[in-house]
């Protein structure tokens, strides 16, 4: 309905290969960015920004990371939580060792560590497939969790065993620690997520992304086309873990403020996997939709009884929440196993062919 594609013809491959070849889509992106960068910081309450938007964005980034692995390369992983942890601990250590280096640079470079760890645990994927690979990644998950507890150097020998975010400034503004305003933290997270989403989209649409999808769709054929499984899989593990690592570092530095190992436990891996599957495998939009569904929906559900003045105790709400979310997950899988992204795409398609049904 909003789409007016007539007259949008391409006279060069550059235009035809663009990520958003349709004008209205480009406008929509601009609109979303305006909302995200201007409207939300201006109108959003602290609660909305800190408890909904920041975690939503961070989880979206992690979901993109996992989606690269699961959705684009077809390698199942349940180690996301731990890979996020690697990023968080790496960032914490680096800022302890180099307190003067800009924290944002450290956040990004912490991804390098998780990428390296991810590659190591990705090695078995060369021989192991499917659910069997789940076990390797679970091994990574539990082994790394154990490391986070058992290697006190990682948390600076803190008595609590937790990493606590020190206060850091960037460009003269306090960006981490409790004194950093929610808006500042939100804007940094948003900028990083937007930039990294853009990069992810570039990689996916290019040679490397294609090699991942080749491995995913038909690994044997891919190899016979000259794709080296080693490169393709490990690069997917590396990029995926990089994203998760950065998400993990941001989670601690811009959202939680402090974290124990439980922040990176296996439930976390499940949570992200949910986002990816519900959102839609092999879709960047899906990663955002999935994160929104899994993270924001419960927050809203929790707020509902209070908002409509229903006096149910918190525990019951939580129990019902669990049931609703579990039920919705099943419902969505039944109704649209390809996730929200497919629904999104269908809706978009509907709008494109409007008023026709197909």
């Amino acid at each position: 309905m909003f789409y007016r594609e007539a007259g949008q013809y391409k006279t060069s491959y550059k235009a035809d290969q663009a990520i958003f070849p349709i004008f209205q889509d480009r406008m929509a992106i601009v609109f979303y960015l305006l909302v995200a960068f201007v409207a939300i910081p201006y109108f959003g309450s602290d609660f909305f920004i800190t408890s909904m938007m920041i975690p939503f964005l961070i989880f979206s980034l992690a979901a993109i990371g996992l989606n690269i692995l699961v959705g684009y390369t077809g390698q199942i992983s349940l180690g996301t939580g731990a890979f996020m942890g690697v990023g968080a601990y790496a960032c914490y250590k680096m800022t302890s060792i180099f307190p003067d280096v800009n924290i944002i640079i450290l956040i990004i470079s912490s991804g390098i560590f998780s990428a390296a760890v991810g590659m190591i645990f990705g090695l078995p994927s060369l021989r192991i497939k499917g659910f069997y690979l789940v076990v390797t990644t679970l091994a990574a998950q539990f082994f790394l969790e154990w490391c986070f507890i058992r290697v006190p150097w990682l948390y600076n020998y803190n008595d609590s065993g937790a990493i606590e975010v020190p206060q850091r400034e960037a460009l003269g503004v306090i960006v981490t620690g409790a004194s950093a305003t929610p808006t500042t933290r939100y804007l940094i997270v948003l900028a990083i997520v937007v930039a990294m989403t853009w990069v992810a989209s570039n990689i996916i649409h290019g040679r490397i992304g294609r090699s991942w999808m080749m491995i995913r769709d038909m690994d044997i054929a891919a190899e016979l086309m000259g794709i080296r499984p080693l490169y393709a899989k490990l690069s997917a593990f590396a990029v995926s873990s990089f994203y998760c690592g950065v998400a993990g570092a941001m989670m601690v530095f811009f959202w939680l403020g402090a974290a124990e190992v439980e922040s990176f436990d296996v439930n976390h891996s499940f949570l992200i996997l949910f986002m990816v599957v519900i959102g839609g495998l092999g879709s960047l939009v899906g990663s955002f939709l999935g994160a929104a569904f899994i993270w924001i929906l419960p927050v809203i559900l929790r707020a509902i009884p209070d908002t409509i003045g229903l006096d149910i105790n918190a525990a019951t709400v939580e129990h019902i929440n669990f049931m609703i979310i579990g039920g919705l997950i099943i419902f969505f899988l039944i109704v649209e196993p390809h996730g929200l992204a497919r629904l999104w795409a269908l809706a978009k398609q509907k709008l494109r062919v409007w008023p026709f049904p197909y």
Partner: protein
Amino acid sequence: MSADKSAARGEVRSIDSLVTFPQYLLLNARRFATRPAMRHKNYGIWQSWTWLQMHEEIRAFSLGLKELGLDKGQKIAIIGANRPRLYWTFCAAQALGAVPVPIYSDSIAEEMEYVLEHAETVMAVCQDQEQIDKVLSMGKKLKTLKTIIYDEPRGMRDYDLDELRSFEDVQKLGEKTLGSKDAADEWEKNIYQAKGDDLAVMLYTSGTTGRPKGVMLSNDNMVKTAISANEFDHFDETEQIVAYLPLAWVGDHVFSYGQAFTAGYCVCCPESAETVNEDRREIAPTYFFAPPRVFEIMLTAIMVRMEDAGTFKKKMFHYFLDHASKVGEKILNGEKVAVFDRIKYFIGELMVYGPLKNRLGFTNVKVGYTAGEAIGPEIFRFYRSLGINLKQLYGQTEASVYISAQPDGEIRAETVGRPSPGVEIEIADSGEVMYRSPGVFVGYYKNEKSTKETKTKDGWVHTGDAGFIDDNGHLRIIDRAKDVGKLIDGSMFAPKYIENKLKFFPNVKEAVAFGDGREFVGVIVNIDLTSVGNWAERNNIAYASYQELAAHPQVYKMMAEHIEQVNRDLSGEEMMAGAQISRFLVLHKELDADDGELTRTLKVRRNFISERYAPLIEAIYDGSTEKYVDTEVIFEDGRKGSISATVEVRDVKVFAPVSHKEAAE
């Protein structure tokens, strides 16, 4: 090749002195150097040429042709679909004073052979291997044909014949001469030497009977017609059109070549015949021509697709369409419309009309034309109510298209408009429409007899159509003059008129009416497979083939209802009430151009059909209720086969004339 060497040289001629299209090319290369001249969807994108680039391409090819010996007055055949290079060939040939002869690319070899031989073509430019094969299959029969040039090299590797050359090779040949002498200057000089009354192009009309005739059109015919057509609809260099109609048809030649060169607008060639709709959507042309049939198919497709939409969407769609049919045309015509209706129309534009036009690729259409046959008033109004400025025109090859056209603001479904600029129209005593204009052709090539029959000494041309000028000064066409006949009881019988009324039902694809010199009117009906098939699906009617569907009792019932409706309409019209349809049958096969039942422009060949289906027509008139018939058909690959069926004939209700006046005679 640098720009200064190519375009900006030579003398500057004033625009009024230009009499040929190559002269316009030189002008456009200078005035619209960076504007797009042509686009072609190829290799996935719209490959584009500016006027300057196109000028260079044409010049290279033209010089190449010259090297190959093409000379003034010689004929060069152009065979293929809408491809930039084939369009360039027109200009390249004209630049040398040679005469391009486009040939319908779907002609079978024999048809092609006739034209090539008749026109004494010395060269042929073919699109691809398929056309080359056809030309080569004629072997040595074509004595004049010396050189064959192909556009697409695909599959041509093994053709090591001396007379075969690729388009690129010829261009290279031309470029080589550019390097050496003052070839470019020479070439331009040559172009400016051309005269207005030189032959510009020769177009063979397929005609409903007999051999095709080569209509000779001069530069003046073409250029003047093109210029006045541009003025009539205010076309300039910003237009974009999609060239998808046959290259050899006069309409396409005028729209995609003549008007494009004189106005300087951009012509876009679709990727292939299958992708025309998609390509049109991408380009969103500002000027669009299509025969009524295309509009009809489009409307049917829209309605069929909407049938599958959800209830809400369907309701909304029809709600707004209803509204559009009330006020849409008024708004388009600039009439007074209540504010509330305007608001509602605006919402409709957002929700329905806009998206719909967009899906059809009509968003940017300034002017759309339809011609060739009468268009159903509902169809015509439908498009206009959406805000598409669709108009009708009436034209002929012999007139370089334009005889009459509807000026903005005076558009009615049943007329074909006022005489075009420079055209005079008269109705002969026989009721036949006659015209005289600057576009009137020079004559039929090598056919003095026909020329004399058609064109009077003082330049009046017989159209062969019966019609009259109505009270508003608009021309109305009833039928082919020779087809208008009388029933035994003397009632006027205009078969086309009746057929068109039937064809306005989406379920009816084609209808052929008989009745001249008979007791009553009988019709052979062809169902529309898309529309009826869809209806059958929705009503759970199983069918395995076209034949089975056509013979289905339910389908018969539906057709009978349609025909009754037509009869009811006819009964209200003074002149036509006497010739209502009494009996009909639904034909068991689709009328097809390959079987010769339709012309290449998809017009019904009445005489052929009445011969071919003589037994069926007999059955209509001898009162039998069914008839076995066996028909020979030609498959796409050229093999022959036959279809046989027992066809049912039915009676329909006839209505008494409503008019109080007495029926004619």
